[in-house]
């Protein structure tokens, strides 16, 4: 391909792009020309490196030097020192947060050590806008093998043997799904890629499409070959402009190379892919709702059976898989099911991508083997809790999942263990919470989401969740009763049992699991009219501790509503009628003179 001696890889994911990675790329390109190095050093804008916390990230190849928090102003120093003189720019290197020592390359960072990257194999390595780079890393080899050397049955058998399960959250065996769709007779069949990532705080699918769109295209074509479908559809959120743009480029390139279209690789197999846009509805992640949305209707789920594999898009047999599931397929074909089976736990094979976020030091995108424990994820990879606070819980599975507390820290993560622990795998959102988070408020937050996103079709979800939300509202305002707590439990279980689709059946999970693990917090809100975490504003009062106040005026100057009065070197006073309880005075005070009660 190229004769470059060195590569500068710049993260071009949404997060890093928001912090000037585009400007950094431009600066590098200009400077390389200026120094006459453009023939020797290649600048590549890649997909997400995963380590979003330290973005924008610049990685130097071949030595894996990992520069963090890079700004456009740093580019000249990197070229002068690193490229010209061969010396690393030490101030930009990542420092181990515990030992404070400088880490010279990404291979020695704790963040990456425990990760195995299968679905994310190309994210952060290749230019997602170049099909050649994908091909150089064995891209489209799996499609070639399938079309020229194997029958659809053999391919399906390989996927079945690999034990791959749906990564969108359901965990249904992928090979079996393909087999069912393949066996249903139909003149026209469809394969669909579900890229409607609605879980707030999760960005796995987006990152794959932004960083390695060809892997999804290749897998969809293989899926088409196996099931007898000639048309693929990607249902993607309109809120993901970058992913859409890169997917469009990838589709165009694949067509140009004859990897999509008619008679692919001379095999007689026809396949092409279209993009369909979502319009912001969480429920459209459910496959029947997604199909209705693609047909131009309201995204309301319908009863299964019939399953989409029998009657899906326009009434035709349709195979729906999630982005991450697809991203695994080419690797399984290339390396074989036996290899894939060596990774993961007994019942869950392979890896899982998680979007690690919340009160954790290393926010980012990670991929770990199934069976890794929560402790490893949170402390070894995630670097522990921010600001040295105490871990309280982690929510997996987004608004459909539940809270996992300290007692589950050593539980190996896989589909079955998480379900048994009262949560679920979900699509891979993992939100870490610390001692400052009020579990009642978190439950209310998730329920507020569900209430808004309920499609309104069936009564338990539409009305029941609204009532649950109102009860939680009362409790967080200090107006709850003991009966309310019992009502939450009863109503939650009814909604779970009586709702039609996955959204309704799982919507009370955050409430039920917080009730189970943090009942004391609910009791404190109701009985003692207090919020132990100090989050529920109606129950919190900020006052000045007279003995401790030095009259430094810091709180006075920072109060956004002018509720604090007091002269310099005199005790200050908070006017409760003006106070909006934002907590700024508490955060700013250096003398611990603000009392939260």
């Amino acid at each position: 391909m190229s004769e470059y001696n060195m590569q500068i890889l710049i993260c071009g994911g949404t997060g890093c792009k928001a912090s000037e990675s585009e400007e950094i790329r431009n600066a590098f390109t200009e400077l390389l020309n200026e120094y006459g190095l453009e023939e020797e050093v290649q600048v590549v804008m890649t997909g997400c490196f995963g380590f979003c916390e330290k973005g924008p990230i610049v990685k130097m190849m071949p030595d894996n030097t990992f520069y963090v928090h890079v700004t456009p102003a740093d580019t000249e120093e990197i070229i002068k020192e690193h490229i010209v003189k061969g010396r690393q720019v030490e101030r930009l290197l990542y420092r181990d947060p515990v030992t404070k020592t400088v880490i010279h390359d990404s291979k020695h960072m704790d963040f990456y050590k425990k990760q195995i990257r299968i679905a994310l194999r190309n994210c952060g390595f290749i230019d997602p806008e170049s099909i050649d780079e994908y091909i150089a890393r064995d891209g489209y080899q799996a499609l070639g093998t399938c079309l020229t050397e194997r029958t659809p049955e053999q391919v399906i058998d390989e996927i079945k043997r690999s034990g791959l399960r749906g990564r969108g959250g359901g965990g249904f065996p992928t090979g079996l799904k393909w087999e069912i769709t393949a066996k249903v007779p139909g003149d026209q069949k469809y394969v669909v890629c579900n890229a409607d990532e609605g879980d707030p705080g999760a960005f796995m699918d987006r990152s794959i499409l932004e960083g390695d769109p060809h892997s999804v295209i290749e897998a969809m074509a293989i899926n088409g070959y196996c099931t007898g479908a000639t048309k693929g559809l990607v249902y993607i959120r309109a809120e993901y402009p970058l992913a859409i743009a890169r997917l469009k480029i990838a589709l165009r390139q694949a067509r140009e190379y004859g990897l999509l279209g008619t008679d692919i690789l001379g095999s007689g197999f026809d396949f092409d892919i279209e993009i369909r846009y979502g319009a912001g509805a969480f429920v459209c992640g459910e496959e029947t709702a997604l199909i209705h949305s693609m047909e131009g209707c309201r995204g309301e789920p319908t009863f299964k059976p019939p399953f989409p594999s029998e009657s899906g898009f326009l009434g035709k047999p349709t195979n729906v898989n999630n982005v991450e599931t697809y991203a695994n397929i080419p690797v399984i074909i290339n390396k074989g099911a036996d290899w894939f089976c060596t990774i993961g736990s007994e019942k869950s094979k392979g890896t899982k991508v998680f979007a690690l976020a919340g009160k954790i030091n290393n926010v980012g995108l990670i991929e770990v083997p199934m069976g890794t424990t929560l402790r490893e994820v949170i402390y070894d990879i995630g670097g522990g809790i921010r600001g040295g606070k105490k871990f309280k819980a982690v929510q997996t599975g987004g608004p459909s999942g539940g809270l996992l507390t300290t007692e589950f820290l050593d539980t190996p993560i896989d589909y079955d263990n998480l379900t048994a622990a009262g949560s679920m795998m979900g699509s891979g959102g993992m939100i870490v919470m610390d001692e400052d988070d009020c579990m009642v408020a978190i439950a209310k937050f998730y329920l507020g989401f569900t209430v808004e996103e309920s499609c309104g079709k069936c009564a338990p979800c539409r009305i029941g969740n609204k009532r649950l939300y109102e009860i939680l509202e009362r409790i967080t305002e200090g107006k709850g009763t003991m009966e309310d707590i019992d009502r939450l439990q009863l109503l939650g279980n009814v909604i779970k049992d009586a709702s039609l689709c996955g959204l309704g059946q799982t919507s009370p999970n955050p409430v039920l699991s917080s009730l189970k693990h943090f009942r004391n917090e609910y009791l404190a809100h109701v009985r003692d009219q207090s919020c132990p975490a100090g989050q529920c504003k109606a129950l919190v009062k900020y006052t000045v501790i007279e003995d401790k106040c030095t009259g430094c005026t810091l709180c006075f100057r920072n109060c956004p509503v002018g509720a604090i009065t007091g002269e310099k070197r005199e005790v200050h006073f908070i006017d409760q009628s003006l106070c909006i309880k934002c907590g700024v005075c508490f955060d700013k005070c250096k003398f611990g003179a603000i009392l939260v009660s």
Partner: protein
Amino acid sequence: MPKIKLSDTAVETIREVCKTFGNKEGELINVLHQVQEKLGYLPAEVQEMIAQELNMSVAKVYGVVTFYSYFTMIPKGEFPISICMGTACYVRGAEQVLSEFRRQLKVEVGQTTPDGKFSLSCLRCVGACGLAPVIMVGEKVYGRVSPQQVKQIIAEYQEGCSSQSAKTA
């Protein structure tokens, strides 16, 4: 049919968009995406017109428009402000940032300031969770926003307003 009060250019735009999608009912969502992109929002008159063009009931169009959060029936401000309310942003204080915007702009979520400059909305997840809490003004992303910064962010656009609109005009 009720009388349609749309400008001739708007009528033409809608007709064209519907035509590119073959005036097919099944393409409704694609049509709505494009029309909203061109006109900014989807008021009742626009929906009536689309229903007519695609030969379907207005009720069905309205049902779809109101179902999806991406479609809006209210015009957005010159500088639309969106607060990310994804869980990652929420646990890092997005709610406080939102209430500060509400207080400063004196509008509620989903509304536009009377001068048409700012509109306030919540969105689910920008996907820049490493920068939480995140807000967007138009296409620009602001990361690690604190309530104290809100005033300054608004001021940035209030001052730059005249020059900005001059540029786009």
